[in-house]
């Protein structure tokens, strides 16, 4: 049954993708893209990737959509008519598609336990994690310890994007300066969103905190938590107006979160070095290496959560402030 459902979802994915490209109204495109992400997340869940599903839902369907909408508000709603260039594009992508489909026929089939992916490195993780790190969620273990360096890189990708957006949108036409604090009503005068939203915000934030600190045991972790909390705050900003959100968490705090989170993560690594281990080798943090690993993971997950939450909110505010300025 689940396979049929899966087939249906995948087919729907293609249909929606085509609809996204075909839609002339950019707003429609963006909303469809959000649905595309949700469908993708469902697929991931079917494929046993709970952490990824959670992330795709929070980021793909949530944050991405918000940023797209903020950008749309600043630019244009509709796409102009396109002329020419289609045939070449079609040929190019056609060749590419056939190349990939050509490759599929020698791929290991779905779910084959003997596929190379399941033979070499992965079993080692499943087998050794209880011994070395002893947390149930292997994804978290791989993410924050075995491949913790990748995750550090990931945090710095977010950091780069954050300061990048601040830098690029920080270039202000001089005439618009000083108008940042114009109050905007948000959705305050709409009763239903107002009531429902107010009820939701604390729960979203609470859920985020749960995901943050439960990451070792269930799906979740710093990244998902950061995204979820950011979503909650953005919802608040939509309801109460951007200025109110900024009063609750000012820009400087957000930047502090980003910088602090990134430095916290990196700092743990450096501390490991000083304590005689390799960079990010948490086992030296405590006398018992397993405890050390767990301590390290908790700290760096906190760092990831701070950095991601701060960065996403900074990006959102950068776009939103631009809107008011215009």
């Amino acid at each position, binding site marked *: 049954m689940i396979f049929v459902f899966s087939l249906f979802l995948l087919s729907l994915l293609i249909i929606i993708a085509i609809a996204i490209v075909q839609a002339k109204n950019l707003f429609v495109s963006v909303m469809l893209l959000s649905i595309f992400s949700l469908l993708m997340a469902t697929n991931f869940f079917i494929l046993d990737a709970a952490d990824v599903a959670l992330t795709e839902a929070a980021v793909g369907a949530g944050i991405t959509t918000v940023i797209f909408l903020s950008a749309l508000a600043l630019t244009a709603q509709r796409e102009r008519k396109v002329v020419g260039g289609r045939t070449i594009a079609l040929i190019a992508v056609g060749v590419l598609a056939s190349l990939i489909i050509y*490759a599929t026929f020698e791929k290991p089939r779905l779910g084959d336990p003997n596929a*190379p992916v399941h033979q070499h490195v992965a079993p080692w993780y499943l087998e050794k994690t209880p011994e070395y790190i002893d947390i149930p969620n292997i994804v978290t273990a791989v993410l924050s310890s075995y491949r913790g360096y990748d995750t550090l890189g990931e945090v*710095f*990708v977010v950091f780069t994007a954050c*300061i990048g957006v601040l*830098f*690029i949108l920080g270039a202000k036409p001089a005439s618009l300066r000083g108008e940042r604090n114009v109050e905007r009503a948000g959705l305050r005068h709409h009763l239903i969103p107002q009531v429902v939203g107010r009820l939701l915000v604390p729960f979203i934030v609470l859920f985020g905190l749960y995901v943050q600190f439960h990451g070792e045991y269930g799906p979740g972790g710093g990244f998902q938590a950061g995204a979820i909390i950011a979503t909650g705050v953005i919802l608040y900003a939509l309801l109460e107006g951007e200025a109110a959100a900024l009063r609750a968490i000012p820009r400087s705090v957000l930047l502090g979160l980003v910088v602090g989170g990134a430095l916290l993560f990196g700092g743990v690594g450096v501390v490991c070095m000083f304590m005689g281990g*390799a960079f990010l080798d948490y*086992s030296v943090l405590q006398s018992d290496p397993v405890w050390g690993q767990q301590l390290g993971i908790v700290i760096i997950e906190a760092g990831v959560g701070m950095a991601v939450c701060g960065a996403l909110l900074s990006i959102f505010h950068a776009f939103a402030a631009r809107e008011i300025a215009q």
Partner: protein
Amino acid sequence: MDLISHLPALQVIVPMLSAPIIVLLHPRGLAWAGATLAALVSFAISIALAVAVLGGETQTYAMGGWPAPFGIALSVGGLSALVLLVVTGAAAIALLAARPSIDQQIELERQPMFYSAWLLGLAGLAGIVVSADAFNIFVFMEISSLASYVLIAGGPDRRALLAVFKYLIMGTIGATFYLIGVGLIYMMTGTLNLADMESRIGDVAQTRPVLVAAGFITIGLALKAAVFPLHVWLPNAYTQAPHMITVFLAACATKVSIYVLIRFDYMVFQPTMAEHDNQFALFLMPLALLGILVASAVAMFEGNIKRLLGTSSVAQIGYIMLGASFISLAGVEASVMHIFNHALAKGGLFLAVACIAYRFRDLRIQELGGVAKTMPFTCAALVLCGLSLIGIPGTAGFISKWLLITASLESGPFGWIFVAVILVSSLMAVVYIWRIVESLYFGGSANRDTVIAEAPLQLLVVTWIAALANLYFGFFPEVPLALADNAAGVLMGYGK
């Protein structure tokens, strides 16, 4: 663990962790000082690494203390050490000189973020080079790409925005292609570590996913490396970027992608896949030759000095790819040497251009008539670096050209064609460099209302350091040559 064994990790984390701190440094000049310090420390680390590698040891590092296929490993051999020298050296040189030029182009309150992005770019590039893990390379590739988008977007002209948007699209497509290729290989081998990949790819080397993966990786990286004809983003991006960013990126950004390309093709595919060397050569050689000729020809007619030099970079990338496509010891050595020497020449040229741009807004060649009268030192440095780009003996550029021609002659029956192409494009280089020189020295001077004087001392001194480096490495190329030798030996399988 002692400090020396930590060097590969420090190479990345020093600039990376400095970046968040720099953002907070608001008072005037402090962000610049911090960034420069971090870049200089990185440069010192890369020198120490090069010394260690020349001592005969490939430096490896297990991140988080996890053994290689399970954790992420770093490794620095001859090739990586040389590319690291180029990357950190370019960043250190450009940052040392940057302040006057950046003060002119970027508002003061945005500078901390700008310098922070610069360090992130450096950290990203260094991270790619030291990494021995296919996915980790992707992550750092994205850090460096995002940082370079930010840096280029700092260019004051509005065309910078469009240029950087194109670069972003192309760069993302390239990186995603790379990611697809890595995924397909991972699917067939179950590992992400490059060395492990090589040892496990043998059985499945002829399967379709691996063949397609080789294609995806090669094209994706060629896109990022601006190999002709996938170079369309490069001239615009280099032209519109802030002048000091052009110095930094032109010297090292595309080279790092070439480095990854060479590494994948030589160390993962070449030893395991039959016929791969022929396919690789067949794919790259025509592109390299066309790139050399077409880009040089286009450069002869460019009007803007930065665009001209950017277009010439595409031709120079062709030289590097040509050497790599010979799949011979001499070819790889020439290619690796050219990575180093071109960085010296182009970095120096763009530094000199930055000096000129400090005084003259309009960088069209015909508008720069007679600049040498007021900026004699700048123009002399420009001529010196230009000669190195052409490949006049006594300059660094000559060494790699010599090696490349030698490698061409040894490459087989078509060697003469390659020699002819290299020489014809060298002559075209004479033409486009001399167009600049003639205008600077003998062109008529238009009426100008700008302050006419030499560039600020800080810029000028650094420019001359770069120019003299071109001379120094023209006469004493032992160190890069030894590293290139080491690299070629390892890549061709003799050094294991």
